[in-house]
């Protein structure tokens, strides 16, 4: 029998158990939130790999887009256009998006390991008619638990499977 089994079997008033759980959680969150954590990395075929913290992203110019989420309802998302983040990292966009650079793609990874990819032209406004966003708020509120802190929003895409939640990293690669 392990200690946590014992905890579950020990007769404790539920309130005490709940309070101690909340306290542990509070301490844990306090400990983890006081360290400045990297929240997003941009790496791969870029000239300036980036390691960003929440404050860096908050300070960047934000744009709003509307899009239909899985609930079928239109929402307003605010965040940073993906193209701006990739330009900051020195990815080949705009005038450089030609020739062999047309076989480059961005792999976006979530904290849980989920991954999706976008070809660079999908992200570049010289090609694409829609703005793909790295959103950090929806309808004026921060993204909820399990969705945020960052989520890719692809306006007009009929299926939201590439609206990847809990975004952790973006890697630019060449198709080889």
């Amino acid at each position, binding site marked *: 029998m392990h200690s946590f089994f014992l905890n579950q079997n020990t007769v404790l008033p539920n309130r005490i158990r709940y309070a101690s759980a909340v306290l542990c959680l509070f301490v844990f969150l306090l400990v*983890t939130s006081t360290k400045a954590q990297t929240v997003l990395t941009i790496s791969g075929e870029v000239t300036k790999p980036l390691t960003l913290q929440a404050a860096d992203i908050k300070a960047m110019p934000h744009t709003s887009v509307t899009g239909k989420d899985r609930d079928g309802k239109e929402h307003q998302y605010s965040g940073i256009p993906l193209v701006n983040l990739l330009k900051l990292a020195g990815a080949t966009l705009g005038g450089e998006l030609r020739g062999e650079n047309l076989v480059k793609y961005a792999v976006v990874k979530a904290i849980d*390991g989920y991954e999706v990819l976008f070809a660079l032209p999908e992200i570049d406004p010289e090609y694409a008619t829609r703005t793909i966003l790295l959103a950090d708020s929806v309808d004026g509120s921060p993204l909820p*638990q399990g969705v945020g802190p960052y989520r890719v929003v692809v306006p007009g895409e009929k299926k939201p499977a590439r609206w990847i939640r809990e975004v952790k990293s973006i890697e630019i690669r060449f198709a080889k």
Partner: protein
Amino acid sequence: MRIVKFCLAIALMIALVSAWKQPDEPMPTGPYALQYPASFGGRFTIPANNPLTQEGVYLGRLLFYEPRLSKTNTISCGSCHQQNRAFTDGRALSIGVSGKPTSRNSMSLANLLWVRQFFWDGRAASLEDQVRVPLTHTDEMGMAPEEAAKALQQTGFYPALFRRVFGSDTITDARISKAIAQFERTLISANSRYDQYQQGHYTLTEAEQNGLHLFSSAPAPERGIRGGNCAHCHGGLKLVQELFHNNGLDQVAPDAGRQTITGLGLDHGRFRVPTLRNIALTAPYMHDGRLATLEAVIDHYSDHIQSSPSLSRELMADSDKPTGFHFTTKEKSDLLAFLPLLTDSSFVTNPQFSDPNNLKRTAVKPHHSTN
């Protein structure tokens, strides 16, 4: 001396004849051709410095079942990864050379070719790296670095085998890891009833059909659709996706899981979403083996999800659904009817993956040291 050798030879012949199966004689050589269904896809990487060869897989299989790789000469990889249990050990936590339980449950070894991050927390980036951990962990095989290599170097037959695979007699932990990794890459399971059903060779019973529907469907109360949404995290044809989720076992996880690797608060209590291939054979369940049966697992997802800040979004309550799936008794029994279809009997009985017993001595001529 001659008489001794003669007797040895006779004894070996008797051992061979009485063995369950004939060894590969002579030791097979050449590239190893992997066979897997096209539907599994080719998204895997075999390290350039460890190409898959028949001789490497052969050696890896010997090493996988080699108790000399443990401090007490009693524990091999195969002790905690038993083929008849889809390479698990039936314990909540494994017992190694120290007699103390390890901290996590032994994982099934199937279709590792497609896995990129090993262990419950995903800390190893290759099978080669993974192998070294149980080899040296004090509660698993308990060998100091290079101690396993020394032990094999002193045997009569291993140096010659290593020469065949790596081009020299020198045995190192790195080479041991490479050979075991090669064997593990061949452990492909693709012939369960579920696979046969996908290929149109098996017809589901009504209960199995209902179970599959619950397994595959996301619940949509507004449209009256019931579901367990298992496939969302556990994947489709391969029955695995490389995801790490907190599946609501605890409000505060006693084992921080992936957070210990990434340092991210949001990774607290997240663990690998394991493969469901052969799941009926791999009890007990969860990273700490706390749930003894599939019934208990289904009950957990139905009624016992614990909320916490890193709880998987798929298991969270939202405006139109409570936490957990709240299956009916019939839904539970339908799911329990479906899950055994994921058992691949040919995988757990494949002689290619079994313990080769003591046939190793016959693989190549005994190596005679010069001193």
